[in-house]
């Protein structure tokens, strides 16, 4: 097993083998190329050193054929590497649909994590072996980067938006968790462990500890405390759109554009309500920027996800083309 070689990192996720295969291919290729170039250099240097009596007649000044050979063949080779690298990258970028969700907040200089049942951790993450896990991450201050070398995954964690990373652990054990984006004084202390457990052990661990309140329940509490429900209700004539079935639906906006109500949209609507107002409602909502911490936003999000039901006809248009979500959503039409 590669992992047991000295100076080779442990492989502990389904992605690790794929990344290592590409790595070893490139190591081999580099070794061959370096040996070829060094060998040719040394051979020429010895054979044509000044004073030797060898044939130096008609030295070539250039050769179109050679130039073509040594640019087109490398071009073909690097395009293969590109395709290979890209295919691995898309596996890393695209989580499976059934992945378990975990929320991560990076803060100088610690990682705060919360499981779906409400259990919280700091600088430690317990996960079961053989189950895909998807992290939704944000930062409270500067840019951090969630990096688990044994899983071969890394993703910057940005303030003001969500990024994601996923992995499926394959081997129980304890692995390094690093912050890989320089974040200030104690950057090198923003480290922790990912603990991969057998599924039954994990279940036992998850049930233990202080019984946490689930994020959705906490979110509902926050939702009520902040008075969100006084406007966002199903009653006709309410000042804000009802939120039932909102998550994942397409909403119609003021000027006729649409937006997919994903995590980014909902987050934006809480911290910057005027950015994309639902059609038919006045821009009245105050901002909650600074009033709700990132973890609170996560909880409200989870609560909103639990609200199921028919969408209000005003806000829904089934045939509407999907707009593009994202931290900085692009709005296709220029509004004039």
């Amino acid at each position, binding site marked *: 097993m590669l992992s047991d070689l000295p100076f080779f990192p442990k492989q502990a996720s389904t992605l690790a083998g794929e990344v290592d295969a590409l790595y070893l291919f490139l190591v081999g290729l580099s070794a061959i190329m370096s040996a070829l170039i060094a060998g040719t250099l040394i051979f020429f240097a010895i054979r044509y050193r000044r004073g030797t009596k060898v044939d130096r007649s008609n030295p070539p000044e250039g050769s179109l054929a050679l130039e073509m050979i040594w640019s087109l063949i490398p071009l073909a080779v690097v395009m293969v590497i590109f395709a290979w690298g890209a295919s691995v990258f898309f596996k890393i970028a695209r989580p499976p649909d059934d992945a378990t969700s975990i929320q991560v907040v990076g803060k100088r200089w610690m990682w705060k994590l919360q499981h779906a049942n409400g259990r919280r951790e700091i600088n430690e993450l317990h996960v079961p072996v053989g189950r895909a896990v998807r992290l939704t991450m944000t930062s409270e201050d500067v840019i951090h980067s969630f990096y688990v070398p044994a899983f071969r995954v890394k993703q910057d964690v940005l303030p003001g938006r969500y990024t994601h990373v996923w992995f499926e652990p394959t081997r129980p054990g304890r692995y390094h968790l690093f912050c890989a984006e320089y974040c200030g004084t104690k950057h090198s202390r923003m480290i922790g462990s990912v603990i991969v457990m057998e599924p039954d052990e994990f279940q036992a661990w998850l049930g233990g500890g202080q019984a946490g309140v689930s994020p959705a329940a906490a979110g509902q509490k926050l939702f009520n405390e902040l008075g969100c429900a006084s406007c966002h209700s199903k009653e006709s004539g309410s000042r804000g759109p009802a939120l039932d079935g909102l998550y994942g639906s397409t909403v119609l906006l003021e000027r006729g554009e649409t937006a997919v109500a994903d995590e980014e949209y909902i987050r934006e609507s809480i911290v910057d309500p005027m950015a994309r107002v639902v059609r038919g409602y006045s821009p009245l909502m105050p901002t909650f920027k600074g009033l709700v911490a990132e973890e609170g936003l996560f909880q409200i999000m989870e609560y909103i996800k639990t609200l199921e039901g028919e969408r209000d006809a005003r806000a829904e248009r089934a045939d509407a083309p999907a707009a593009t979500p994202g931290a*900085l959503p*692009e709005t296709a039409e220029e509004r*004039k």
Partner: protein
Amino acid sequence: MARTRDVFWHHFQDLEHQRETSALGMWIFLITEILFFGGMFACYVVYRTAYPEAWLAGSATLDVKLGAINTAVLIGSSLTMAMAVHAAQLGKRMPLVVFLVLTIVLGGIFLGIKAVEYEHKWEENLIPGPAFDFHGQGAGNVQLFFALYFALTGMHALHMVIGIGLLGNLVRQSLAGRFDAAYNTPVEMVGLYWHFVDIVWIFLFPLLYLLGRH
């Protein structure tokens, strides 16, 4: 021409070679300027695409009339600058001085109007920073519009100030009779610079002032 001695650098073949090389150098400099403003334009494009509402709201607070007057003033100053170069080429000293002074005056008017606009923004608390205060549609990101408004127009105004300084120096030299039909490269070079600054404004005016006016 005895005077040529002190304006000619020995490493050129002749004055024409020197002029061509100076012009090339000036153009290369102006190309760096394209990219200098380009960095801010990149921010502008990204944020305008991301926050169209904020851009409309921010643009609406600007005074189109003042912006349009300033555009006319600046284009006028480009005309007087072109006329100054023309006068220099023909070796006409007084018209050269007059057109240079006119260019300075128009540049001054532009900066004056700009200062009035800045003062309005100051009074309306629209200077980005802790005191920034804006309510209404797109409120969350209007500060970005003003950050770029001040960065772009501020950099442009700084270029104007430098340009006026260069023009003042040219006036001094022209009065001293340094330029004639054979040697007027500095006038031509400052002219290139001045026209470039005009072009930047030609783009800034519609990009900042004219959004969502209908």
